């Protein structure tokens, strides 16, 4: 019988990340879930974010903001990837969880950047400066994105 084997240098977890994982996994998974709408993908996204943080540990100054930004970015990337798949395959790659909730449904209609801003502002209670840091935009832009998102939500609800 054959076995595939490979020589890979062992890698360990940074203790601070392990502690953060134990303390904040659920919080971060909730952010990802609210952005993505799928529990299974949300878990994966958070895990991937921690793996990435561990890999780039030398450049991580503040673990929580770093991982939170990674979670938001990966959630946004997931949406973009699904959009690409839909364009190429002509149908949704995966079915979202069905929730009979109008506000939940209209949240899903927002572009991924605006959805992130809404979740970070109204669920995570971040300041506009913090939202700007996550979305890589100035504070006034973050404020504009949140305001614009509310306008878009109101329009969607009125339909």
């Amino acid at each position, binding site marked *: *019988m*054959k*076995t*595939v*084997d*490979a*020589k*890979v*240098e062992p*890698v*360990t*977890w940074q203790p601070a990340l*392990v502690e953060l*994982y*134990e303390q904040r*996994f*659920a919080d971060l*998974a*909730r952010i990802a*879930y*609210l952005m993505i709408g799928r*529990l299974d993908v949300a*878990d994966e996204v*958070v*895990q*991937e974010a*921690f*793996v990435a943080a*561990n*890999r780039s540990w030398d450049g991580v100054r503040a673990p929580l903001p770093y991982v939170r930004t990674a979670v938001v970015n990966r959630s946004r*990337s997931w949406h*973009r*990837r699904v959009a*690409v798949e839909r*364009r190429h395959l002509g149908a949704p790659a995966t079915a979202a969880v069905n929730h009979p*909730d109008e*506000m*939940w449904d209209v*949240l899903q209609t927002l*572009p991924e*950047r605006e959805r992130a801003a*809404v979740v970070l*502002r*109204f*669920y995570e*209670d971040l300041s506009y400066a913090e939202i700007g840091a996550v979305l890589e*935009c*100035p504070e*006034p*832009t973050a*404020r*504009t994105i949140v*305001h*614009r998102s*509310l*306008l878009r*939500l*109101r*329009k969607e*609800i009125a339909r």
Partner: protein
Amino acid sequence: MTFDSDPRFDDIDNDLRDLAGEMTAMLERRAADVDGAPRRLPAPLGDPPTPQVISLQDHDEPQAAGRPNSRPFLAAAAVALIGAMGIVALLFPGGDTSVIAPASTPEPQVTPVPPTVEVDVAPAVEDQIERLQADEDRLEELVEEHLIDSLVNQAAQSALDTLPPSLVGAIATVNNRTGELVSSIATFPEGVDVARPVGSTQHLYTLTAAFEDGIQAHDWVSGVGPCTIGDAQEPLENFVRSTGAVDLVINQTLRASRCAFARLEHVLVGAPKIAATMSELVGRDVAPSTFWTHETRLTPQEQARALATLVDAAANGDAAAESVLAVYQNNVQMGTANRARIGPGVVGVTGTDEDFMFAWFVGSRGDFTSAVLIVSANGEPMNPGQDGFDISVTGGSLPAEVWRALHDQIADLGIAGAEPADDRVGWAAVNDRESILLDPGEAVGMISPGCVPSHPAGLDEDGDRVTDRCYQSDPDR
């Protein structure tokens, strides 16, 4: 339901506060779907993968016990499949594996069953494969994003290549829906990074602030000049051939009346409000100033982002943004931006700084907004009589033409969000009524093929200056 006590809603408009509160309640309710139990930490990953030799070794042991996260995966399945196929091929060389035995063989046949191949894949290899697959997904995504960026960048470079040697330019293009910068390019150092005087494009921000304050496009405002308003050191005079009548706000915008906007800015709206509006639109704090003091400076990216934000806000029902865009659609149809008329729905604002050093055109079509800045290459004002300038470069002339060249190409790219090209519209120049907005002697563009101006006498000897414009399929002309 009210949420007045929650500090998260302090800066939310009153009419949106209940919506924000309901959204917050829903988010908190839905967040409870996550049970809160942390999943097991995945295997940590090291540096990005490097090519490795994967050795196949004899191994009689079953899959190693106690190895976490060890699950069947692509590589294992592939190796197992290849192994199984190889064994079956050895047992049935050159034959169809579905054939049990030749019919003439007298002995009873037993269907040979390949031995079970047990494969153990080191978790690290699995991790590497997963990471490579994730990278591949990301790569596909990046390729698509960068393909669009690259195509628009090439189109922008191509548009700037049409400039004469005496001019340099910069273009920034923003996606209206996402607010993301698609392209940023300049033919001179720091062209896209340095803020420069905005000229009359400041009217975009003044109008937005005015409409947010309840002023309507069809309200009256005096454009009578000369006018001495606020901290102006000397009386302002309207631009050449810009009449100074009392007229509607929309008409004062189309004729770029300086005195009308001075009254709007200083008397009716106020510089602080305009600065706040500008700050919100461009994404950074801009100090209050009056436009006649030439202090307001923006980068091409900021100008593009501002108009893109307005387009997106209008698409989402923002009444003030809708009003502003209506005015600047008219500006393309019959105002200073008419050279950007390449189809319906184009929005455009022009600006030229008072010293003729900088000329702007900021326009939007489809999902893309571009700000074009044209600057004198030799530091001389870009108006007639100056060395190297036999034409007057204003925001409505070359910058609008460059914008048009860019968006013609974007339309041809067929990328998502690009308006399809509209070949019905041709143009030659402006007619007498509208030419009040332009300077005498200003160059005009080429006449579209098949377009016969109604006033051919307006053509000059070279046939490139006319006093009419031509829409090939416009029944009204």
